[in-house]
């Protein structure tokens, strides 16, 4: 019997397909198109303690093999997520990951506290709850003049240390490829007690409108995702997976089942699917089927047989 099951931080995933934050909303929209209960997990739209309206101006621009986004974390806030979206999440099966950002450490800590106490309360009542927090450290750090928390290891360490103290939920840290040293960063996450690292977030990038003579984005830079970044993301996942003992959620430009297998061979425990959801609204079920076919073809019974073999 072939099994696609995976385990991350003691949490069982039916398969390695996890939908990446910001590309899947809270899942409802895609549930109209296919059975999202078949997914391994969902990382929700990036939350912040307070609601955010996001960036003004253009928010998306296509590039060769990729896209730039500058949504600016528009989201309903942690409370609205817990009070409204969780009612829907209680009805679905995939592993539930709350993606949390912030512009200062206090926001991260308060957000994590609320999510954690909500999850504890729901569990007591035998209801489904958030299974894991994924910390988005690619947010600009207001105190440090807007440089993302996830660039310097010692700055990111403070956030993770503080959040670790207030949550009993398994903690994943979503790493930025813009980190000065992504391997050091992931080792630090492990030292600080994170159960998992997920990588990579988008690459800081740019597009200039040569007729307007200015950046397409009001924020100047935007995040590059999509197939264009896959080879770099894969290399980073490989490097990190070699250095840490905690599980790695691999992502960056995955757009086929063979891409998923590459990330697993590079050492990822599970993968996250982001931009591919826009290219193919039924990406989830097609990738799961594609992985199954590959396992049949190669006579693989469990993904453990190929994980980290490179």
């Amino acid at each position, binding site marked *: 019997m072939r099994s696609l099951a995976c385990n991350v931080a003691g949490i069982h995933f039916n398969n390695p397909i996890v939908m990446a934050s910001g590309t*899947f*909303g809270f899942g409802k929209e*895609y549930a*109209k198109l296919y059975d999202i209960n078949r997914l391994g997990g969902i990382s929700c739209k990036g939350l912040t303690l307070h609601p955010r309206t996001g960036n003004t101006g253009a928010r998306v621009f*296509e590039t060769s*093999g990729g896209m730039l986004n500058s949504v600016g974390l528009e*989201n309903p806030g942690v409370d609205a997520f817990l009070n409204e979206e969780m009612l829907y999440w209680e009805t679905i099966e995939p592993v539930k990951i709350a993606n949390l950002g912030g512009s200062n450490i206090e926001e991260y800590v308060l957000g994590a506290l609320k999510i954690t106490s909500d999850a504890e309360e729901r569990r007591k009542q035998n209801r489904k709850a958030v299974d894991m927090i994924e910390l988005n450290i690619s947010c600009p750090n207001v105190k440090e003049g807007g440089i993302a928390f996830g660039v310097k290891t010692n700055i990111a360490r403070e956030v993770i240390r503080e959040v670790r103290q207030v949550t009993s939920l398994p903690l994943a840290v979503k790493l930025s490829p813009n980190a000065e040293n992504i391997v050091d960063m992931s080792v630090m996450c492990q030292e600080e007690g994170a159960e998992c690292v997920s990588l990579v977030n988008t690459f800081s990038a740019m597009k200039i409108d040569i007729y307007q003579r200015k950046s397409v984005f009001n924020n100047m830079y935007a995040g590059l995702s999509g197939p264009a970044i896959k080879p770099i993301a894969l290399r980073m996942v490989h490097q990190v997976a070699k250095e840490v003992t905690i599980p790695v959620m691999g992502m960056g430009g995955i757009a086929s089942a063979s891409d998923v297998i590459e990330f697993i061979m590079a050492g990822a425990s599970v993968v996250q699917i982001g*931009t591919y959801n826009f*290219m193919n609204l039924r990406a989830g079920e097609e990738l799961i089927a594609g992985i199954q076919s590959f396992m049949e073809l190669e006579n693989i019974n469990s993904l453990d047989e190929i994980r980290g073999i490179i």
Partner: protein
Amino acid sequence: MHTIVSNECISEGIYLMTVEGRFTARMGQFYMLRSWNQAPLLSRPISICNIEPDCIQFLYKVAGEGTRMFAALRAGDQIQLEGPLGNGFPEVTGRTALIGGGIGIAPLLYTAKQLDKPDIYLGFRGQSYLTEAYEPYANEVYVKVNGNLLEDLDLSKYDNVLVCGPLGMMKAVAIMMEHTDTKVYVSFEKRMACGIGACYVCSVMNKDRNKKVCSDGPVFLAKEVEWHAELSL
């Protein structure tokens, strides 16, 4: 996948694509169209121009890589359609005017067919197109090529005005009718990624909150829109 019946250039850079199949949709809704595999990355949101018992029609303007690829499609080629998406225009009653500017006329044909002979005002730069198709479904079709269409109109007699066109035009109608009881509905176009409300790239600032063009819109009540936020772009 659906089969293209025809894909004609009806004016400079303007194409009318007819796709085989049985479709049901509300007026003002759209589809995400895709005729390629990986590149360009994103599908393209195109409003419904017309639905017949055995086909659907999309009127589009070649504006970039995706629409250039659409323009190269021939009868018999395949295209992927996701939809119908969005909410479209509400089922209005009373005296109704439809105002279209340029390629913004696209959703108004199917809209006119659902209404009881509205008055239709269509404005163009350079050359008009497809206007004769609106005649059977209108009380009156008024066409203006070059110049300000809105200058010629007395909208005070209408209970509803449905507009699709350039932002400036939609805003101008919104301002003209601001202190009247006429309900003005505007249909937005924005770059989209998912088209279904998950990605937040097509937000439009409304008075109460941000709304998504794809899933909350593309039609909004004009007085709800924060126009300064849209036109400062």
